[in-house]
């Protein structure tokens, strides 16, 4: 089969290559379309559907009632509380993680790798159990309480309060902040800091004018990675919040499992997804990469 190359052959060869790629992707493509994209679409569709009097869903009389319901005081409070707690969580994570990442980036490579592994372990390991650990610690008769009683501060009563929820969220998502921040600080050109100091800037000025702006992509990436799961958190409010002060995640679950108001549950889910997509797009626009 020896022939002179022609534009036609070249084009056919390119097509063959592209088809090979497509076929490789196809199984995952089909799977995700069927078992991810389709479910996602159905949530959006259901958010515009009508709830029947029996708690079922009628796929007719399309309306935006479920969205107007988001403006009602109960739902608004929940939205507000969720956003507030998610923002507080993000800020605390940032405050803890920034100096940590900076410290990490200034260690020598071997130390740094070990330190990183010990951040990666909580990053990937069982989230439920790690929340449960706090439940044990914060319990009435738990170790924290006994310590505070011992030093005369009285019994610790933060379990089942928003404070406990924030504590659990920070505990759960702090690694999400550390890893992108560390990556940003580590990538930084340290000679710029030298240059700034050389040009007479103080340590604080250098940090404000050079270090922080350079690490900003990491700050944004980390904040988004903490904010999104905090906003949609379900396990932590259940375990540490006692499900009393409801957050978005719990509210959605209630609408689906107990209140049987699927359109409203779907509408809240859709809002959550839109926020998430917006934040993710911001993340990629700022040059973020996946962990």
């Amino acid at each position, binding site marked *: 089969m020896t022939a002179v190359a022609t534009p036609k052959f070249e084009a056919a060869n390119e097509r063959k290559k592209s088809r090979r790629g497509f076929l490789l992707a196809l199984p995952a493509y089909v799977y995700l379309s069927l078992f991810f994209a389709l479910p996602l679409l159905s949530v959006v569709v259901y958010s515009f559907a009508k709830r029947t009097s029996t708690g079922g869903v009628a796929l007719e009389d399309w309306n935006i009632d479920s969205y107007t319901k988001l403006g009602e005081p109960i739902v608004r409070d929940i939205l507000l509380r969720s956003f507030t707690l998610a923002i507080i969580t993000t800020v605390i994570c940032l405050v803890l993680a920034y*100096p940590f990442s900076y410290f990490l980036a200034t260690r020598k490579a071997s130390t740094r790798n070990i330190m990183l592994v010990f951040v990666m372990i909580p990053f990937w390991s069982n989230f439920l159990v790690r929340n449960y650990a706090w439940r044990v610690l914060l319990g009435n008769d738990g170790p924290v309480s006994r310590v505070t009683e011992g030093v005369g501060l009285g019994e610790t009563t933060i379990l089942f309060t928003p404070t406990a929820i924030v504590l659990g969220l920070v505990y759960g998502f702090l690694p999400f902040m550390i890893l992108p921040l560390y990556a940003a600080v580590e990538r930084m050109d340290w000679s710029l800091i030298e240059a700034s100091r050389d040009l007479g800037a103080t340590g604080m000025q250098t940090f404000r004018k050079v270090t922080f702006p350079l690490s900003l992509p990491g700050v944004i990436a980390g904040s988004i990675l903490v904010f999104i799961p905090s906003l949609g958190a379900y396990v932590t409010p259940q375990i540490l919040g006692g499900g009393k002060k409801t957050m978005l995640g719990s509210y959605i679950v209630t609408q689906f499992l107990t209140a049987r108001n699927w359109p409203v549950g779907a509408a809240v889910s859709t809002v959550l997804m839109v926020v998430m997509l917006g934040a993710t797009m911001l993340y990629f626009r700022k040059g973020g990469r996946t962990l």
Partner: protein
Amino acid sequence: MAGNAKQLKGNTRWALGLNATLVYVFFYAPIALLILFSFSDDPLVGRWGGFTLDWYRAFGENEEVQSALGVSIRVAIMSTVVSVVLGTMAALALERYRFRGNKFFDALLYLPVIIPDVTMAVMMLLFFTIARNAASTIFGVDVSKGVWSVTVSHIAFSISFVSIVVRARIAGMSEKLEEAAQDLYASRWQAFRYVTLPLILPGIIGGGLLALTLSLDDVVITQFVAGPGSTTLPVYVFGLIRRGVSPLINAVSVVMLAASVLLVLLSLVAQRARGGDVT
């Protein structure tokens, strides 16, 4: 020298070091205490009453726990196998080929990673309910949720994690190596079999272990799509926790945590490995 800027001075160094220590204490103290209390011979959780292995014995003897564990393992293995195959293929397609719709596919592949658990859970619940209704009205068959629906959902998020880990590995591997293999008379398949595959294998193993961890740890999605008899261990434990704490939960938690830490460590080691030998 750029190295100088990296030298922290006096107070700064001290403050940053203290902060780092506190962060690690924050990460590990609760876990350490949980482990400690799981060996405590006191029916009250969180109080030390001498060393015992009773709670672990109870874990081994509790039939509900054991059957939930069985479901967890079955689901984890099945979903890992499928997601490793699909995720690796997707990673190869995206890193090595350009095809129509690859941008869209790329986005679709990222979504399951960033979508909140709860949203994915209701998505899947809704989907399986619709599918069940459709199946019974159209074909007259009953497809109740069960182990299969849990597995299907786990695969849906695991594919993405596997493909991200494998993609990172492929991206770090020069395309020149595959070209060199073909230049040295390897067919496309041989080039894949003897050069690409052994070099990305650590990524595949790392991704697989990650998929295993995620499947074994998932609560929220599983809780929504599990049917009767398909309760996994985390879902069972979550149910118990909501009713209150108990030393048994401590022991089960420690076992679950140990398993996930072990898998994560193995995954990290695998991802850093150099690549297997071809014999």
